[in-house]
């Protein structure tokens, strides 16, 4: 029983019927596939977003935990700057400026890492925990939220954690693009790798654009110390 005949014919040479898709068609397929994937992920983040509005309520309406606004603004700005450098890298590769692309990607990576560190150390309170334990110093006005702080902790860590996972995967992608770009894998005409990585990275930024107000700005602030 064989559903597929072994392939001996010469139609491999038929140009309109080649087995690897022509570059243009493959590029269209790749773009559509990537965007569909991102659209699919919208439902993941909307699920979390909806959970936030579902759970962060009391009798008076929508509430939010009292978070450190400086930390939030720093994180948001850093991610936005990284997004700028990412689009700069893409413009650079389109115009054949390999060096500029390389530098911009490095800046993107640095800014992305800073964002990640700010999430882990400031938002999740790891820094304060360390400082408090070692020197007895508290740096931020508000004690960081803890996972066990009821719906506040669950949603806060759920949203920032799921977003951080995407940031990490984005950083890995940037590293891959950097390494391959160094070997000269991307040209003015063909740089799907850079484009895909850039689109993904901006998407991670777009998610944060909605998560930032949802976590930090919307609703009545409630102190959550337990």
């Amino acid at each position: 029983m064989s559903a597929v005949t072994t392939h001996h014919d010469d139609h491999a040479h038929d140009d309109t019927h080649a087995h690897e898709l022509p570059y243009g068609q493959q590029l269209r397929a790749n773009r559509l596939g990537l965007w569909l994937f991102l659209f699919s992920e919208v439902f993941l983040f909307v699920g979390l977003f909806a959970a936030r509005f579902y759970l962060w309520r009391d009798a008076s309406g929508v509430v939010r935990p009292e978070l450190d606004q400086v930390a939030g603004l720093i994180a948001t700005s850093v991610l936005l700057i990284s997004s700028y450098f990412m689009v700069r890298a893409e413009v650079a590769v389109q115009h054949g400026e390999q060096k500029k692309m390389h530098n911009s990607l490095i800046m993107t990576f640095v800014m992305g890492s800073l964002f990640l560190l700010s999430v882990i150390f400031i938002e999740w309170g790891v820094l304060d925990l360390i400082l408090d334990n070692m020197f007895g110093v508290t740096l931020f006005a508000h004690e960081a939220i803890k996972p066990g702080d009821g719906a506040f902790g669950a949603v806060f860590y759920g949203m920032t954690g799921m977003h951080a996972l995407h940031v990490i995967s984005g950083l890995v992608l940037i590293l891959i693009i950097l390494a391959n770009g160094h070997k000269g894998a991307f040209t003015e005409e063909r740089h799907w790798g850079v484009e895909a990585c850039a689109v993904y990275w901006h998407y991670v930024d777009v998610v944060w654009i909605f998560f930032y107000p949802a976590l930090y700005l919307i609703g009545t602030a409630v102190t959550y110390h337990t």
Partner: protein
Amino acid sequence: MKAILTFTRSRFARALVAGALGLIVAAILVAILNSAHTTWVTPGLEALGVQLPGQLLDLAFWAVAILILLAIVVTAFLSGFGMFHSRRMGRFWYYAAGTALVWGVLGQALTVAIVLFISYLTMGSDFRLTDGNVALAAIFSVIGFLLFSGVLTDWIQWIFGHKTELHHGAPEGEPEWMRYFSVDVNHKVIGIQYAVTSVLVLLVGGTLAIVFRLELSAPGMQLITENTYNTFFSAHGIIMIASILLGVGAMVNYLVPVMIGASDMAFPRLNAFSFWVSIPAALLIVSAMFVDTGFDTGWVGYPPLSTVGSLGIILFLLGFYFNGFASIASAINVLVTVGVMRAKGMALFRMPIFVWTAISASIIQFTATQTVGVALTMVVAQRALGLGFFDPTPVAAGVPVGQPLLYQQLFWFYSHPVVYVFVLPGLGVISELLPVFSRKPLFGYKWVALSSLGIALVGFLVWAHHMFVSGMDDSLRIPFMISTMFVGIPTGVKFFSWLGTLWGGKIIYPTPMLFVLGAISVFLIGGLTGPILATVPTDMHLHDSYWVVGHFHATMFGGFIFPFFAALYYWFPKITGRMYNERLGKLHFWLMVPGFWVMSLGQMRIGLMGMRRRIANYDPALGVEGTQILITIAALVIAWSVLIMLYNLVSSARSAELAPENPWESRSPEWVAPTPLPEFNFDRPIEVVGDPYDYGLADSKYIQTIPAAGD
């Protein structure tokens, strides 16, 4: 990187894998022997009055057991080098050690062992299975499977900047049939892999159902314990869903590229990934039955039970979750394929109607699946990380707490639309086959095409009808009742189209056509019983009763199982080049259809009489015993009829007479192409020059081959 790849292809690696497989098989064998030894042999000898000094018998047993174990492992190991190749056993070990399946399973087992070992190192003598290490082991085990099976190899090479070419045909140095056990990128091979796996998984789920059906045939507990019953009905639900998703994958993968005149899917490697990721996922679900006390949450996994119950629940949740990967990847692939790979002239409204249903199902799959993913992740996060999404325990003044109902909202936002993922391709098969066997155009092609999209879109707005009695806000009841009723409109369009297609046709009744008609009758039962559940007052009474079980099985059988079987018979000559046995096919049909009617209507009847679903025992005073026996008998008849089909298909594939090129005189591209289909579907590119279903219209043509420039 290169060195690793060369090593994995070496004879030594193969021998190692064969040896490891041998070890697992031998260990299972020894475990069985050991239980026979302790339960029968020792007491048996004692009963006979045979006195053996001390532990002589035990010593003898273990000596023999270790000998058997060593013999198997050594034979397997040497067979991996190609020794004993003239013997059946030697060939078995040799080829098994070359399959992606065995590599993957070993990779999965190895990863579980590594994660648990690391956990043992950190926990020391306190080591036990916890929410955390079980979840971690499950997550990494899927990655282990994928790495070892070779699904990720090309992508990993891309990361290091190596370009790889798509490999067509059997793996190097292996016979042609090994394609079906390897990571193959051809959509037809993947389609068949899906189909075979789907049927195997269907048998597992069906066997569970038969066991608890026998248990239910009388009040009281006879065969199994309450806990086993709970595990079995939960596993039956989720295993059948996995099977149906695989079956949908089979039809969509095999058919969509050929039907639109493409050479393959848009992303062949992703396609292979979709299939292979569902194997470790299925293994997680099956293993969930054996870890701790199994899983007793039903396939829905509602908190609070799922957040505090057995560890098996975590495996079930994660298995479900990784199945979602397969769904999403495969749905995106289908949408892109239809978007960019259609043949010349294949306008959207000239595609075979099945493609429309595949698109509609894919739209649901690649979006809604994410929300159930969120829900499942939240449960695992609550158990492993302490994030209290569903934990209503008060924390501090002013701090809101988790709510179990949130799970139901997210869960049903996926799980209602997903039933349309199951039935839409099935309804597509019905619409696809009716014109062929009525020799008439499909009635209202455009309306039918759009009705699929309509069902998909309305499906997103109806989820809360599962929650009328859950304690959700009362004001949501009426809107969701009304939106649910709207599903009936596009579904009605399909029914009238089927009637219009049959009307005045020159109908013939081979097995696939019988199954299509059976599907319509069964889906009608399922469809008509739906609005009764969608109506708030009647649902209050029928919720969680056997009426729901009857309704659900009627929609699943009518919308998926019957059309899937029709598809298996219909495309069998295309896939194998041989004809199935028509007599056995008809026997299958005439056993299964009445069997199903009895089963489904019986379930609804006992539901009305007050039989609850998901309970192992019931009060004889309910008066449902007679009907329960009838349902059990009907279920057995269905099971036997499915076995008849399997026998028919397997034996026909081996030795039946060759089928004509186009036995059904279909106009569809897959039948116009040669049999078996060439590696890239069409020897020459095709072009669409007419409408797909103009049966009986003289001189009408649907597709033609574009002549090559040189001809």
